């Protein structure tokens, strides 16, 4: 009923959890220093521990100070040194045990949510496994791109590399680190949402804050959006063009139902968990929540007339820089939230304890400079090798019909409307302001893609799809947190306000109609294995994992369209192939010719009967190994197996196919 694992996998899980617990305890003093008076520090310590322990080894590998795998424990060591100097903070065994127990339950639920669809195939899983496995076998950062041999990764990959750190620390393989990381992110996100909501609601009572925090946590990890409610529970009333509800429909609504020329995505955290992709926006969620908590801590100090400390400013800058590297959109999103918070601090009237506006502006400008410097320094080693692939910000050609926006987001409106109503009813303004800042930021994130978008490689019909996807992914969490917190002042007033608050709570609660698409009972936890889908090709992929490729050498396997089962060997092993999914490389390198030239070369490599041409391709990419498996035989009807086998000798031969080795001198004559 509660699930189980083979003994060796239990050991992996326990090592993983042990390191996490240690990192959390060691990072707690830092959390208390950054967010003083914001709870016991256990939750933010846990999130910070996950992030810092993951980031430090990346940093050391980016500076080529230590190899990535050898540096895996450096982050925890650094936290230990800091804790050694400053102490572990006030004793709070009860708090520690409570948070740890909550984390373990959530972790287990998150693991179940992942393992119910354990296979690491479909959607972006090959991409994410490619990043993760390439990082785990790399010595320096950026790792070699498993899908573009001879080049480093040119995407915001640092989140997956940080997961790689945890994999190295716990001594697990990338395919096992993947579900463990998904479970960790699930649990940390729930805890983070709880913390943020509870802190926002705290002025109206601790118990109420805990209840609303728990509610927000459940909504964040299991809740859908307004579409999930209306198109499941009230489907008969809705103008749908689809026969039945399918869980991605809530993220593919604008432009899809009904079908129009302007398609946009409105994903949210629970969908990300259901989809099971360890993609940038999901991996960066704990960081995003830490950044929000830090901004709110700074805002609360500001509302008391105290300006940010240098440590807070530097830490906030670090979250900005790390956000840029993990999920670049978070830089703008966190920045927007900070600007909103600073505007509120600046707008407060001068009075007892509140410095003059000029003094506040001076302090906040100093804090901004420190933060910007820290962000630049944090991101610099990433930017040193990263070539931006966006093509500028443009005004949108299409806007979402208002009714569709209401379908998606109306569930938060009743609760959010309580903020201005309560303000008009002379509720204390100061505790409401942080909730308002979170809510306004969420609304702005929904509004921005209605005005401008970041141009990428996609055509007009999907022009603003990515922009809306990344911004509204965060908006959904912020709006849910703000909406839950906004219930607190109403509930605390009692009387009719309790009824109003409970009524506003109903549409929020109804989004849990999405829960069946995300929740899985712990009994599904049986094995961490995510490679069973490979079938009889599994030995071939596992053999490829240990091929001794020298730097700049490549293997070649079938390439193909995105989200297919091509490019699986490189994706699952991190071994560099000539080209992976072509469209992805086009996007990441913003160079269509570079990607398709390679894809054409790979096609010719497998099908040409001209040895010279094949040799030219071997030399061009330093191809050392050739994969001839089921996928190659399926993709290349004209596969020249005779010509291929004449080029090298098999180093693996089995049920899944063959791997040939081409000696370096083969194509030199």
């Amino acid at each position, binding site marked *: 009923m509660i699930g189980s694992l083979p003994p060796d996998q239990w050991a992996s899980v326990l090592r993983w959890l042990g390191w996490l617990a240690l990192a959390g305890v060691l990072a707690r003093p830092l959390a208390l220093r950054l967010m003083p008076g914001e709870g016991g520090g256990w939750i933010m310590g846990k999130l910070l521990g996950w992030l810092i322990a993951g980031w430090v080894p990346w940093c050391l590998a*980016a*500076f*080529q100070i230590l190899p990535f795998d050898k540096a895996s424990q450096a982050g925890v060591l650094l936290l230990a040194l800091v804790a050694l100097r400053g102490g572990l903070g006030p004793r709070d065994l009860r708090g520690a045990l409570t948070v740890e127990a909550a984390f373990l339950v959530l972790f287990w639920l998150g693991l179940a949510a992942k393992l119910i669809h354990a296979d690491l195939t479909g959607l972006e899983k090959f991409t994410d496994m490619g990043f993760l496995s390439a990082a785990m076998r790399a010595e320096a950062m950026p790792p070699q791109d498993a899908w*573009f041999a*001879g*080049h480093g990764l040119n995407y915001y990959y640092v989140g997956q590399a940080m997961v790689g750190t945890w994999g190295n620390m716990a001594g697990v393989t990338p395919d096992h680190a993947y579900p463990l990381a998904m479970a960790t992110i699930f649990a940390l996100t729930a805890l983070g949402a709880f913390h943020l909501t509870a802190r926002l609601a705290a002025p109206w009572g601790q118990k109420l804050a805990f209840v609303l925090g728990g509610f927000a946590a459940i909504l964040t990890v299991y809740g859908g959006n307004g579409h999930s409610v209306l198109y499941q529970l009230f489907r008969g009333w809705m103008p749908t063009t689809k026969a039945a509800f399918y869980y991605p429909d809530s993220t593919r609504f604008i432009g899809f139902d009904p079908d129009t020329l302007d398609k946009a995505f409105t994903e949210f955290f629970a969908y990300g968990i259901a989809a099971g992709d360890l993609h940038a926006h999901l991996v960066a969620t704990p960081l995003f929540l830490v950044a929000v908590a830090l901004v709110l801590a700074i805002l609360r100090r500001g509302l008391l007339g105290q300006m940010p400390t240098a440590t807070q400013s530097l830490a906030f800058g670090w979250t900005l820089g790390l956000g840029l590297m993990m999920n670049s959109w978070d830089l703008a999103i966190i920045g927007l939230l900070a600007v909103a918070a600073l505007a509120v601090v600046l707008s407060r009237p001068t009075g007892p304890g509140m410095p003059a506006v000029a003094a506040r*502006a*001076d*302090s906040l*400008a*100093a*804090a901004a*400079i*420190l933060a*910007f*410097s820290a962000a630049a*320094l944090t991101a*610099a*080693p990433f*930017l*040193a*090798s990263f*070539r931006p692939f966006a093509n500028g910000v443009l005004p949108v050609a299409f806007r979402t019909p208002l009714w569709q926006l209401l379908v998606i987001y109306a569930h938060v409106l009743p609760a959010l409307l309580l903020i201005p109503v309560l303000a008009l009813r002379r509720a204390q303004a100061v505790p409401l302001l942080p909730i308002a800042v979170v809510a306004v930021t969420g609304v702005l994130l929904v509004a921005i893609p209605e005005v401008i978008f970041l141009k990428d490689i996609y055509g007009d019909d999907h022009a603003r799809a990515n922009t809306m996807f990344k911004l509204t992914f965060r908006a959904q969490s912020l709006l849910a947190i703000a909406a839950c917190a906004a219930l607190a002042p109403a509930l605390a007033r009692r009387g009719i306000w309790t009824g109003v608050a409970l009524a506003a709570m109903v549409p929020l609660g109804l989004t849990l109609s999405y829960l069946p698409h995300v929740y899985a009972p712990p009994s599904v936890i049986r094995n961490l294995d995510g490679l069973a889908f490979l079938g009889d090709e599994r030995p071939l992929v596992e053999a490829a994992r240990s091929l001794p490729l020298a730097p*700049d050498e490549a293997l070649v396997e079938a390439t193909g369209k995105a989200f297919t089962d091509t490019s699986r060997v490189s994706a699952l092993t991190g071994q560099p192939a000539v080209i992976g999914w072509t469209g992805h490389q086009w996007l990441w*390198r913003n*160079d269509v*010719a*570079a990607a398709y030239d390679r894809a054409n070369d790979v096609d010719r490599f497998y099908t040409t009967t001209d040895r010279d041409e094949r040799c*030219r391709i071997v*030399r*061009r990419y330093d191809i050392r190994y050739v994969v001839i498996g089921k996928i190659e035989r399926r993709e290349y009807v004209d596969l020249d197996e005779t010509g291929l086998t004449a080029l090298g000798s098999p180093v693996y031969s089995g049920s899944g196919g063959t791997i040939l080795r081409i000696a370096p001198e083969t194509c*030199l*004559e």
Partner: protein
Amino acid sequence: MLRSRWILPVLILAALILRLQGLNWDAGRGLHPDEGNLVRAATSLGWGKLVPDFHAYNDLALWLPKLAALPFCDTTSEHCLRLSARALSALFSTAAVGVMALLAGRLAGRGAALATALAAGASAPLIQWAHFGTTESALILLVAALWLQTVRWQHGATGTTGMALGTALLLGLGFGLKTSALVMAVIPLIALVLAGRPDAACLRALAWAVPLTVLVAVVATPSLIFATQDWLATMRFENGVVTGVNPVFWTRQFRDDFGPAYQLRQLWGGTGGVGLLLALVGLVLAPRSAWRGLAPGLGFAILYAGLTFGWHAAFFRYLAPVFPVVLVLAGIGVAQVFDRIPWQSARALVGAGLAFMALTGLDLAASYQARDPRLLAEADLTAHARPGDVVAVEPHDTALTGGLDTVVLPLDGADPIAIATGLAGADWLLVASRRNWAVLPRVPDEAPLACGYYLALLRGELGFRPVATFRRASPFGALLEPGLGGEETRTVFDRPTLTLLRNETRLDAVAIATRITAPAKAEECSPQALAALWGRTR
């Protein structure tokens, strides 16, 4: 912490470490051309040959590394003398940091001394020059030392005799390194003018100091007497080069971009932009008591800029003597902001600026720990080339081809068949820096085929396909490196980006010549446009 008396020594020690580490950055291959000339000339010196044949640097510049190396290695070995020259350069540069810090401290207090030590200690150009066995570091030290001595005299910390003696020695020795050092005489002269009507002691000191300066200069440069005509001929040639009368390949880059605005841009880039701004802040906020001491340095900088900023040859190294003035002023600016400006934001901005300056220097210093990209390219080439392969290289550059047969492409010629023949017979093409592609297309009268050649090459029309790019690794990589706007010697000597191309299609010479001579638009050959093509993913 800032009150600790150990901070200044620690900063100077750090400056020394940044300068001494990675001195053998080219693994003994002698990849800096100017340094190579100097070292070769120094190697030939000895008891049988006391006067050199080479006069682009004066005699002391050649003898110093030779004499310094005597106790340590074979002074007939170029490698020995190269390391000796670089070690001297690093030591001079470190000493200059200390002198600048003392100077700033004397002018504006301890805070200014610390800020100057940090700014100068981690200054990227100073660290780079410290790794070259040329005379820039020594010239910087001379300017700083002359200025410090002048200020000490103004403050009464040294007497007139000491001042005159020190000035004569410094100027004379400076001339022994580089003729242009004579302009530094303006530093004590301004102080003398500011002192008002000279007293008898001053006049007496002048009377013996001037001939002493000449004497020291002649002793440090015996070529003046023993090879007068050669020395004068070199000076005339060098003058022709800097004024643009003598066209040479290494000044082609300045064909349509030189002059005061260009040099100010270089100074801006060399100090990360921030240094120049901080120097302006220092100028505005300097305490009134410091003005008398600042004047000699400022006067020198203005005069030097007036003399050199109009030169056709706008090499970055010519800015070296201005750096002490900029860095001392920047240090004073930082200290004054912290002392006098109550705004936290201003302090944060200045602190961040100083940190940025330091970061550029640390990044450059770290890059010397990485293997030279020319060596990496050579290793890659020899690993992949077959016996008998031919490598085409570009003219006037330092490509290393590992002993493979090499053909130099006449890219600055007008004969397409000559270029095409070289290419058609080559298996590889090694582009060793931006020296040719960022310059030749801009001078179509001297290199009429360059634009067409590079466009065809980079579009893949000549049959060559890039197989690898090599750069000197550093923590912040291209982020902090001078871009195409930076004068080329800031990167081509020690941080070039190389591209190795393989001849895949093996076109014949006629086909290649036809493609090279195809019409090409000049705007497609701008350095930026070609850089974008080089940067395309393969």
